[in-house]
């Protein structure tokens, strides 16, 4: 299972860093609207200035390329070395670091370009903005009809999963039935689809750019860009709805986590493919319209490090990203400040979760009998089962003969912990699955536990002690 997790992380990370590289690092800067988030201007075309920009772009592009190569090689190594201890923790931390590090040369490039601009005496007129009356509210590409169908399919999948879990309908004799796992998976994916729909419409309604004094050019340019974006969103919605929901239903039918993870891997390939096509087309549009770009809106100083928009005079919350795909928020907007704060909190929370996962991977489980109770311990006492309350204890030679479906808790190659459905029964699980052996305990209150120690010897020892006292 962890090997599949590695494949998914690989599929997510490697295309992401190369797409980011293609977006942020301009190879032919003369054809681009922005150079490291700084507006490309006529003043940059002079031979001396041009040489300086060549040097800045070369240096930072090479740095980013080298970083990407290193990250790609490490990703391949992590994928090959599937048996690495704490690999989930290493993978997630690596993804965090890689995504952050790939923007570092961009930030340096932005700083150097702003310094060059200053040395040339270019002072942007502050507070200037342009609006084309003919494109206001008229350039839309995402049709509501195109997103209704994938969302209906998604909603139906959730309803089917729910009815299956409520045992109103019977799809197959699946051990997962009744655990609400399929409902949770389908429901989450359906909500992701709804989120994509909302983001799609927000992006479609974003301010049209003014690149020329000719309104027709502005309208065509914005229409081309929004059409490209709408296509990507529709493809993402279909990929999200049909593919993952269908595979989630397969998960109900087969009860196999591998099927679902393989599905997520394929889904990620599709999404990354859609993103790559979008970026390629977007860059082509920029290239085609570059010669028509006669209006320069120089708001470089409002972009911190060329990435974060901060403009207290702008009442808009949602702004087209300067670096990357999609939109960003105006950090000076009251709601923008709250969203920014929540964003930082979620990053901190994600890091804490990753650290917690790492601790779970690194800490061996412990099973012992102490003070008349069976104690399952890892970082803290997970379960304490008084021996007096144990009705029966059965030794399981090979837990892989059991049909186990996680309802909630931890499901790693080396650790299973939490609430599981085992052979259709709701149970508490505390196992080192790679050691194969376990003890099945049934209490007088009817609660069922599947537990083991960090080693087979530890499990055997506790079983012997239990057998003697029962």
């Amino acid at each position, binding site marked *: 299972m962890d090997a599949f997790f590695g494949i998914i992380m690989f599929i997510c990370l490697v295309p992401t860093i190369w797409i980011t590289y293609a977006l942020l690092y301009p190879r032919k800067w003369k054809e681009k609207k922005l150079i490291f988030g700084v507006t490309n201007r006529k003043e940059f075309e002079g031979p001396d200035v041009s040489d300086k920009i060549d040097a800045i772009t070369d240096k930072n592009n090479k740095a980013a390329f080298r970083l990407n190569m290193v990250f790609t090689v490490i990703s391949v190594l992590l994928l090959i070395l599937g048996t690495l201890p704490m690999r989930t923790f290493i993978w997630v931390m690596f993804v965090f670091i890689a995504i952050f590090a790939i923007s570092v040369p961009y930030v340096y490039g932005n700083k150097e370009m702003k310094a060059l601009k200053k040395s040339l005496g270019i002072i942007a007129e502050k507070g200037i903005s342009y609006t084309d009356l003919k494109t206001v*509210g008229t350039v839309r590409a995402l049709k509501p009809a195109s997103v209704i169908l994938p969302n209906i399919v998604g909603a139906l999948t959730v309803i089917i999963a729910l009815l299956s879990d409520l045992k109103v309908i019977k799809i197959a004799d699946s051990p997962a039935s009744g655990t609400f796992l399929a409902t949770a998976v389908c429901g989450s994916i359906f909500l992701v689809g709804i989120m994509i729909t909302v983001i799609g419409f927000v992006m479609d309604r974003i301010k049209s750019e003014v690149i020329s004094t000719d309104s027709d050019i502005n309208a065509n340019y914005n229409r081309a860009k929004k059409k490209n974006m709408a296509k990507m969103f529709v493809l993402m919605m279909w990929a999200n709805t049909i593919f993952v929901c269908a595979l989630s239903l397969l998960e109900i039918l087969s009860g196999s986590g591998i099927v679902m993870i393989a599905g997520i891997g394929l889904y990620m390939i599709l999404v990354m493919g859609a993103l790559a096509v979008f970026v390629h087309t977007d860059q082509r549009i920029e290239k085609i319209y570059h010669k028509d770009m006669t209006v320069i809106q120089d708001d470089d100083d409002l972009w911190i490090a060329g990435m974060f928009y901060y403009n207290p005079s702008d009442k808009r919350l949602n702004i087209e990203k300067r670096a990357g795909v999609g939109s960003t928020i105006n950090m000076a907007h009251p709601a923008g400040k709250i969203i920014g704060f929540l964003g930082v909190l979620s990053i901190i929370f994600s890091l804490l979760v990753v650290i917690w996962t790492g601790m779970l991977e690194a800490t061996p489980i412990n099973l012992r009998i102490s003070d008349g109770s069976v104690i399952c311990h890892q970082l803290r006492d997970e379960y304490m089962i008084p021996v007096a309350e144990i009705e029966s204890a059965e030794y399981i030679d090979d837990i892989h003969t059991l049909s186990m479906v996680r309802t909630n808790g931890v499901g790693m190659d080396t650790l299973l912990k939490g609430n599981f459905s085992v052979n259709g029964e709701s149970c508490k699980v505390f196992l080192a699955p790679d050691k194969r052996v376990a003890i099945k305990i049934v209490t007088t209150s009817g609660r069922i536990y599947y537990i083991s120690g960090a080693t087979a010897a530890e499990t055997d020892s506790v079983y012997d002690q239990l057998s003697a006292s029962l």
Partner: protein
Amino acid sequence: MIIRINELSDIPIYMQIRNQIVMGISSGELEGGEQLPTVRALAMEMGINTMTVSKAYQLLKTEGYIMTDRKNGARIRTSIQKQGSISESNKAELKRIVSEARLSGVSKAELIGLLEEFYGTES
């Protein structure tokens, strides 16, 4: 038609919108009967308060450049009343511009040339 807004200008934003729409009508960029964006859409696009756009439209309506109704929103008037005279405030503004030009050493011929250029292209 492109509207250029300077947030740091002494001229209020609603007046900048009003002035540029008037210039657009005069130059023919905005034709009679042409639909203007809704107050909300224009405010969202410009990143300004809806009240500012509303004030500009209200002024244009009072001055007879546009007409508004609930069904069709704001449109440029097909026939704008030609009074054949310059308002007192515009006369004062013109006097100020001519005075500043004279003090800056701009010749009368140069100024008339500019006037002819603007009037000619905007007629």
